[in-house]
């Protein structure tokens, strides 16, 4: 095989190149030729094709994502915003948190275990590359119908993959989601979140400044993993018949990643890293172009020096390989020895593969010949930007017109409650979460089934002993709501995550998001995307929480059938005194139960309509963001004053489900009456901006007074105690029976 060098490219300008096979459009290829003033070499083509893929360049989403910046609320907490590996937020006392959510949807469909596992690995490296110690993970999962055969293939593998990888890293899994809907049958959504902690003044960035500095590749050796994956696997539609053409999937080595984590932390501690970047999709191509583009502008790399697992790899393949557990660092020549010694201590292979230059060019050689010579910014930053056409879907008005009002209402609310409680979306997720280690490192304050995960800071890292703070995190999304109204759906996803953080007593601070959609080339999907991003940006502005980063996953569709638009939103909050966190549910007998927030009749997209009538139509609940803000303020103040003993937010399934789950949490019953006349609406409407709390009887007045100050309606419903959930004149169910319905559902399906 002849080596395609720059010299050869100049001599053979008309050589036909397989840019289309690499997913590049004619005009994109022409632009590369214009940039270089010649045809690209095959290695350069490899770089541009992956860097300009949808996955890496955000070419279809960029124009919409900009709103997250332009509409961003003023926030003193934001230290690093969008555009870096992950956003960084000031959490006080000199400490910062970095967090991000990312998708690994397509790989998880092809090979559920490895696909999901490497999804966790990738997001953890993003967090490490900010200079942080990763401290917890979460996973937001969506599958086809629970009883559909392919779900039985995909779900156990995904859960095992996430569990195994995260457990091996010693990262507690503190939350996430599992949802089922037939729309995800060929396109499961596997979104993984990681959060890390670092000193505010020790943020690392992906940059390669200082000519003469060394470029070090460390971690696993490079193999043929997912070659072409970034552009082919991750951003093209694939269908069942094409199984034979599946590109090599990446296999993760969590042990190597664990070594990498400890190794990186020691490198940071020793202060021997100038810039650092993880290798994810697009591997060496991405790391070199991005580091160079953000640094002094030039870099020289000898690709022969890249340690290979498969010695037959060609330079193009090395550039595109997605081998996991690799990082790239920029190190001053004086620190190289110290850097290598630390890598050796941790048994992490490390190799100098190049040097920073001031030429403004990224130059790579192979066997002494120049095979890449490009301005790195043109690959990393100046990718194509599309203003994709969009319009409202043809059936949208009809869908919105077909409201739930026409559905017959149930007469037996007891049975309805048990049916919903045992439906796959609302049932206990313990079958999944019991496969995750939630205790490791001993800092987990809240994990499943709490509304948000919470981690204390003081013992995460040396030097943090003085702080009493904790961070809380939740991820949420609802594809049905977003299908009915993507603008409101995205806002409701944010509202729910925000509320989940608030009910623990923490104050929401910042947002990350993973936008899972169908093909951007379909104007109807693009409309959903445009509406969802607009909705999210507007809501962030109103709630005062900036978007710090995230990820877009397009092409989640089989044939022309796209998934429900599914924006998944993660919210991070801070609690000043972690010991004041509010526990989940009814924590003791003899407490007063109160409902905060107003209830309206809202059943569009509801769990009831879905489970009982298999109906999706009408409009989702209103996203009343002012009310959300008030509710969160009440909860934070009440937690700080120690007014609340237990809490639970209201979301899917409404008050009925929240009451049942609150009873199940500690096995404490309750007797309540409903705040409104219509018991069905009272129990199952999904109005947002509501939460259930329990307080000592003598604290009720103070709570009511606090609610009054923030204009939050507060209804005393009754008291906790006994062994049953009693809703006066409506239903009476032993807690044991609630528990059986709730906990038995998934094991009955998945074994």
């Amino acid at each position: 095989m002849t080596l395609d060098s720059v010299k050869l490219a100049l001599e053979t300008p008309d050589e036909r190149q397989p840019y289309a096979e690499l997913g590049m459009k004619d005009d994109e290829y022409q632009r590369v030729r214009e940039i270089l003033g010649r045809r690209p070499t095959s290695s350069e083509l490899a770089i541009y094709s992956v860097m300009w893929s949808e996955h890496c360049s955000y070419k279809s989403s960029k124009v919409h994502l900009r709103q997250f910046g332009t509409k961003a609320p003023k926030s003193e907490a934001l230290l690093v915003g969008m555009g870096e590996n992950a956003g960084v937020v000031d959490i006080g006392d000199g400490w910062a948190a970095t967090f991000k959510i990312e998708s690994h949807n397509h790989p998880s469909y092809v090979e559920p275990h490895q696909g999901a596992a490497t999804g966790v690995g990738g997001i953890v490296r993003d967090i490490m590359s900010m200079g942080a110690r990763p401290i917890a993970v979460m996973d937001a999962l969506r599958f086809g119908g629970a009883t559909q055969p392919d779900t039985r293939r995909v779900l156990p593998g995904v859960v095992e993959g996430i569990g195994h990888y995260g457990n091996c890293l010693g990262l507690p899994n503190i939350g996430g989601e599992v949802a089922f809907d037939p729309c995800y049958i060929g396109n499961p959504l596997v979104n993984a979140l990681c959060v890390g902690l670092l000193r505010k003044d020790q943020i690392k960035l992906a940059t390669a400044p200082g000519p003469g500095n060394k470029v070090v590749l460390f971690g696993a050796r490079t193999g043929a993993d997912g070659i072409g994956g970034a552009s082919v696997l991750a951003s093209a539609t694939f269908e069942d018949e094409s199984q034979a053409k599946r590109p090599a999937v990446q296999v993760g080595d969590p042990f190597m990643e664990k070594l990498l984590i400890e190794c990186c932390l020691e490198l940071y501690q020793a202060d021997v890293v100038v810039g650092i970047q993880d290798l994810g999709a697009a591997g060496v191509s991405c790391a070199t172009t991005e580091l160079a583009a953000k640094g002094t502008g030039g870099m020289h790399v000898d690709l022969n020096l890249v340690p290979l697992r498969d010695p037959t790899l060609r330079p193009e393949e090395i550039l595109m390989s997605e081998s996991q557990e690799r990082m790239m660092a920029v190190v001053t020549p004086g620190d190289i020895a110290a850097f290598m010694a630390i890598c050796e201590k941790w048994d992490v292979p490390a190799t100098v593969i190049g040097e920073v230059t001031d030429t403004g060019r990224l130059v790579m050689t192979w066997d002494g010949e120049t095979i890449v010579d490009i301005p790195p910014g043109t690959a990393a930053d100046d990718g194509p930007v599309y203003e994709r056409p969009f319009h409202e879907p043809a059936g949208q008005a009809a869908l919105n017109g077909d409201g739930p009002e026409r559905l017959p209402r149930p007469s037996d609310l007891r049975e309805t409650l048990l049916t919903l409680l045992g439906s796959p979306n609302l049932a206990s997720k313990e079958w999944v979460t019991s496969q995750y280690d939630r205790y490791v490192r001993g800092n987990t304050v809240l994990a499943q089934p709490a509304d948000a995960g919470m981690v204390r800071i003081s013992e995460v890292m040396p030097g943090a002993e003085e702080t009493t703070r904790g961070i809380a995190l939740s991820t949420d999304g609802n594809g049905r709501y977003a299908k009915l109204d993507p603008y409101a759906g995205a806002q409701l996803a944010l509202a729910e995550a925000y509320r989940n953080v608030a009910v623990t007593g923490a104050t929401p601070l910042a947002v990350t998001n993973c936008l899972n959609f169908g093909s951007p080339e379909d104007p109807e999907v693009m409309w959903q995307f445009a509406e969802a991003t607009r909705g999210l940006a507007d809501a962030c502005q109103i709630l005062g929480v900036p978007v710090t980063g995230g990820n877009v996953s397009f092409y989640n569709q089989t044939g022309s059938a796209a998934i429900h638009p599914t924006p998944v939103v993660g919210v991070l909050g801070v609690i000043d005194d972690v010991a004041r966190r509010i526990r989940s549910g009814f924590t003791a007998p003899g407490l007063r139960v109160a409902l905060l927030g107003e209830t309206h009749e809202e059943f569009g997209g509801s769990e009831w309509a879905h489970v009982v009538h298999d109906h999706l139509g009408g409009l989702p609940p209103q996203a009343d963001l002012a009310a959300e803000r008030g509710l969160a303020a009440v909860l934070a103040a009440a937690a700080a004053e120690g007014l609340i003993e237990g809490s639970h937010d209201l979301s899917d399934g409404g008050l009925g489900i929240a009451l049942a789950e609150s009873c199940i949490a500690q096995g404490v019953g309750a007797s309540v009456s409903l705040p409104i006349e219509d018991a069905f609406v009272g129990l199952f409407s999904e109005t947002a901006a509501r939460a259930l709390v329990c307080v000592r009887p003598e604290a009720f007045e103070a709570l009511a007074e606090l609610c009054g100050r923030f204009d939050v309606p507060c209804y005393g419903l009754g008291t906790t105690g006994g062994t049953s959930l009693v809703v006066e004149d409506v239903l009476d169910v032993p807690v044991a029976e609630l528990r059986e319905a709730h906990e038995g559902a998934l094991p009955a399906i998945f074994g």
Partner: protein
Amino acid sequence: MARVIVDVMLKPEILDPQGQAIARALPRLGFSGVSDVRQGKRFEVEIDGPADEAALSDVRKMAETLLANTVIEDFTIHVES
């Protein structure tokens, strides 16, 4: 009654972290002269009848759909003598 063996190994291009961890450990344990280790699975399948064409074809199908994950693994089948 016959015993059919199905050997399942990761495809050569797929990373085998287990094998690599073993290979890296060997020198420390005083074993030299080993250039590579790969770890796979071995299934012993006891069949009721003889290991004839039909039975082997059944085992092959079983290997393809259940015992091996053909996305990342190859398998071979032989009858134990």
